[in-house]
């Protein structure tokens, strides 16, 4: 065992984590996150390679193709930090080993990050915040912003530390058992919440009149028999509270009928239609614009 000459302090690793938040900043079609990756490593490389030639070699080594989920890059960064530290201390770590760890981890980890963060945590927190915000409640956006960033920063820091401490041994571990379980669990919870969201928030209202039947006398408020002025308003409100109808006829819209069957059915069917279209490779943008056109047409025709 060679005695370690340089080690990365907690402060250095924190700086790396902070830098890693710009991982996608220079995202490009050629090597994707490579610039951001090199930028993330710089606080560590400065400490490890004070010598200019070593620094140049290290920078070039880290400017190769890289792409994964921006948060799941953290455990990979952690492992790479451990390897670079060994290398700087004279242990034989060739460039291929570092490259191998990066490539070996980035694929499986991206597969975990997308469903967990983009498709479970963000929609759930977003829906929670939005449902409050729609009524003008400032807590909605505040809750979303604080919860999201707490979860995110904790995740970045602890997974990077995990990777750093476990070193290269972790790379096979991480893509196996536990993470698979987390992904599956996230998908289950995500699907549950999606089912609920579609029922609650896809708003489709068919105003088309299905029937209009007259209500028996005594079942509606007889406006002609009310006393005039405020007394009349009071009387009308009392009668309304007793369940009397405001009009002489009872209007049933298509929506009332649908709601009796299954509330939210129209929204569910629309979602299935969109899923089918997306699977047929129709661009989401075309679908979105199409829905606006349909909404306008149906409204003009009196369907909605």
């Amino acid at each position, binding site marked *: 065992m060679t005695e370690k000459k340089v080690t990365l302090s907690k402060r250095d690793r924190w700086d790396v984590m902070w830098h890693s938040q710009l991982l996608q900043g220079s995202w490009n079609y050629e090597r994707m996150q*490579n610039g951001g990756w090199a930028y993330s490593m710089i606080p560590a490389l400065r400490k490890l390679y004070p010598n200019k030639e070593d620094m140049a070699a290290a920078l070039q080594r880290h400017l190769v193709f890289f792409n994964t989920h921006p948060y799941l890059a953290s455990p990979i960064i952690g492992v790479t930090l451990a390897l670079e530290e060994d290398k700087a201390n004279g242990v034989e770590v060739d460039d291929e080993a570092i490259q191998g760890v990066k490539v070996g981890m980035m694929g499986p980890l991206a597969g975990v990050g997308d469903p967990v963060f*983009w498709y479970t945590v963000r929609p759930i927190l977003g829906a929670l915040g939005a449902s409050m915000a729609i009524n003008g409640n400032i807590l909605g956006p505040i809750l979303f912003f604080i919860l999201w960033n707490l979860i995110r920063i904790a995740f970045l820091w602890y997974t990077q530390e995990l990777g750093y401490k476990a070193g290269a041994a972790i790379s096979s571990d991480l893509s196996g058992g536990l993470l698979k379980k987390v992904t599956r669990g996230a998908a289950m919870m995500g699907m*549950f919440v999606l089912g609920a969201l579609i029922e609650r928030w896809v708003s489709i209202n068919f105003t088309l009149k299905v029937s209009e039947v007259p209500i028996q006398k005594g079942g509606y408020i007889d406006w002609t028999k009310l006393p005039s002025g405020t007394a009349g308003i009071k009387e009308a409100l009392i009668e309304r509270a007793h369940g009397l109808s405001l009009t002489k006829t009872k209007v049933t819209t298509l929506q009332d009928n649908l709601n009796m069957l299954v509330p939210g059915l129209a929204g569910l069917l629309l979602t299935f239609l969109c899923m089918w279209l997306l699977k047929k490779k129709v*661009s989401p943008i075309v679908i979105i614009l199409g829905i606006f056109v349909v*909404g306008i047409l149906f409204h003009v025709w009196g369907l909605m």
Partner: protein
Amino acid sequence: MDLNAIQVILVIVVAFLAGMEGILDEWEFHQPLVACTLIGLVTGNLTLGIMLGGSLQMIALGWANIGAAVAPDAALAAVASAIILIKGGQGTKGIGTATGLAITLAVAGLFLTMLVRTISTAIVHIMDKYAEEGNWRMINVSQWIAVCLQGLRIAIPAGLLLAIPTETVRSALAAMPAWLSDGMTIGGGMVVAVGYAMVINMMASREVWPFFAIGFALAGVKDLTLIALGAIGLSMALMYLALEEKVSKGSGDAAAAGTGDPLGDIIDDY
């Protein structure tokens, strides 16, 4: 309403942050819930901004660029709709129209994203040069330049929208017939489904469909808040995984068979 110079600058700063985050995806300043609220705050229309953010967030829940599917740009949609809404001065009534207009703009914004990502290719080539010299300082600077370009991607369109005189925005919105703006509001209510469909297509498997069905059915009980629903969903997922582990440990045969169907395994053993 007319905005004074300070307000204009602050809106552009928010737009810049949203543009940066649109690519970084870290602090989430580009999510409508945050961006619209901030624009509402700096222009003195806080409540209006929050409400717009909420309804736009519902639409944008599933928007994420993964694989070949390209979603509209949430950052531009949020910033543009907030500016249109506030300049239009229609109050909460204008939310539907502003959303509809902004989504159309957000589609146009995709071209800007592609443009900046192409420019970034040139930037990383510059980084290569500095790397050869071991010049880490200039790599840091280059990275920040790339990030700032992403910020400008939203800040410049926001500035252009702000430059249009308030009167023009207002009269254009007022000239819009009721059938069009009402229809757009109705469309906005339905567009939410596209985001959900994108998410479901990514996550759905035979194993998780029952969770979807239960969620849909339970949401009909209006007394249950979203937090309560979330707690039920989380508990069920945990129970499912715990039971699965128990079964695979308890009965070696069933686990070895790997049916992936814990309930079936339990019934078989019974």
